[in-house]
């Protein structure tokens, strides 16, 4: 039983940094934008948060700075995609490589340095090793119903989704697709960067080059897995977090499982979802996803 509890505890912790970018990507794709740059945004958030935490001695300032930088960086993506009609996949990949490079540059002086980390609060009393999280973990799970409510229970969410289905019709109904996409990109930039920051100043307390180790891509996979629904995305994130922890815990108990096989779980799940719900996925995917919207003639 204690084994099960420590597994769940670990799954929740490692779900959090991936939940942030996933929620952002769900919203972005709901407005018709595929953003493959999440990995770059996360790395940017991780390096900036660690650098600022080191310089100011305050981990929360680090998270705040990461959020700001993530917002700005994703604005570049949104501007290219929305204003310059650039190809979304190409732009996203460019953003990713930009993020990998610039984060290495920003993080360079802070390799092998110590910086303050976010304080942890235990659910089960102060001495417990399990269920002991920083506030970002609680925030990640709190944001799930919030994003769901925003998307599916508010007028704003309806407009947002309308842009994703058909920007032209949304425009005719008085919604500005451009504004919606910029707004959502800003949110997604903040979320992805905070996810990266959580890895740096929340979980590990270090910066190392490429430390997100593909989590940005797992987030993109989880969006498809969740079929663009934040509630199902939680499940995916927990499965991913659980797989990471389970593999290590099994080893610590003398049960050998290949680390490489368990690392594939999120992708295998996504493939299975596509395989089983293939038609359904096409049906629920936002209709304008990935398409360039050239604007509607204004009268």
């Amino acid at each position, binding site marked *: 039983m204690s084994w099960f509890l*420590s597994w769940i505890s670990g799954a929740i912790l*490692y779900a959090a940094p991936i939940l942030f970018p996933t929620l952002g990507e769900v919203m972005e794709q709901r407005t018709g934008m595929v953003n493959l740059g999440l990995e770059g945004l996360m790395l940017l958030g991780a390096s900036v948060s660690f650098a600022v935490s080191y310089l100011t001695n305050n981990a929360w300032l680090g998270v705040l700075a990461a959020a700001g930088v993530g917002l700005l960086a994703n604005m570049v993506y949104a501007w290219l995609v929305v204003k310059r009609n650039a190809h979304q996949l190409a732009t996203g990949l460019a953003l990713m490589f930009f993020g990998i490079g610039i984060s290495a540059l920003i993080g360079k002086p802070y390799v*092998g340095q110590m910086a303050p980390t976010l304080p942890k609060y235990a659910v089960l009393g102060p001495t417990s090793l399990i269920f002991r999280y920083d506030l970002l973990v609680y925030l990640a799970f709190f944001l799930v119903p919030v994003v769901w409510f925003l998307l599916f229970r508010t007028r704003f969410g309806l407009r947002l989704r309308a842009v994703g289905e058909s920007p032209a019709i949304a425009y005719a109904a008085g919604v500005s697709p451009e504004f919606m996409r910029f707004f959502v990109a800003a949110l997604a930039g903040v979320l992805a960067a905070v996810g990266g920051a959580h*890895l740096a100043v929340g979980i590990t307390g*270090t910066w190392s080059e490429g430390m997100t*180790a593909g989590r940005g891509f797992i987030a993109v996979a989880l969006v498809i897995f969740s079929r663009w629904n934040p509630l199902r995305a939680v499940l995916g994130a927990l499965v991913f977090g659980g797989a990471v922890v389970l593999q290590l815990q099994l*080893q*610590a108990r003398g049960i*050998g499982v290949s680390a490489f096989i368990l690392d594939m779980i999120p992708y295998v799940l996504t493939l299975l979802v596509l395989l089983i719900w293939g038609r359904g996925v096409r049906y629920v995917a936002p209709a304008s996803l990935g398409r360039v919207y050239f604007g509607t003639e204004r009268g």
Partner: protein
Amino acid sequence: MKRVVTVLAALLVGGIVLAGEPCLTVGMIIGGPKDDAGYNQAQYEALMTLKEKMPCVEILFAENVPEGEAEAVLESMIQQGAKLLFPAGFGYMFPALNLAKRYPDVIFMHPGGYMLADNFGTYFSNVQFAYYLLGVAAGLMTKTGKIGFIGGMPIAFVLGNCNAFHLGARAVNPNVTTYFVVTGAWVDRAKEVAATQALLQQGCDVIGSHLDSPIAVAQTVEAAGAFFVGYPSLAVQKFCPNAWVTGLGLTWGDFFADIAQQVLDGTWKPAHIRKGVEAGFITLGEFGPRVPEEVKKIVLEYKEKLISGELQPFAGPIRDQEGNIRIKEGEVWGPMDMGKFDWLVEGIVGSPK
């Protein structure tokens, strides 16, 4: 414009002449950052010690070099006049060997490699033998009787370190169980933290590791109030001031200077050079504030026995996890046998695959 260029060129040449010809140009590439408080820092610090001891040497250095680009970077160093190269990452062995064939007058020294050529030698510390000392310390410090070991990849040298850690602990505390976990990467900080937490939750109260840089492990152990033994650089101590028991640092500075001198004198010969604590190739660190005097004394006694050769960590009979005898009675494994481990010693929980 032309005149400006001429003047600049003259200044440049003048600058070089004023600085004097270097007696030898030495190049090094490493796979990670030079201040990782780990393996790469150990290599870099050795290079800096060489420079300190031989100020006439010119240093060429590049960090974060991917294996695919190693050959090009090393070749550019040769074109800048390097006569001694340290391709200081295990994965650089074949790129460096290729170059060694094309540049017979340049000498290569590779860490941990198993190939030799006329101008290609290898070096490494007898880490496994020294790791036995960390095991002794862990066996004396543990209260739960459970100690943990985190490896990057399940390769022979990692398994050997875990085996030595366990054998050392068992020597002073026959009830110790060692828990072995592999992360699947030399650097993956998030997984290293998860692995540490898994071991701590399992009840392990002393943690050792074989990773590029155990910074994240050290900090996690520190936060949990348990104990930590460091490797491969002593620089990691500052991340866990209270958890620190002791550690091992790879210290090759004096050796690098010797090699450079041999290259200058023309006496260098290709060889597999493997030395340990006795030759200063690996150094036992200072003890942490929570380590009792008695523990320090016993660990240092074992260190003396290791140096004198009285202690042979891998002397048979040694059994594996299934109870099969792997090192027979009377058989002793030496430094060049360390690549043979594909098994874990009896009493270790975990998989060697």
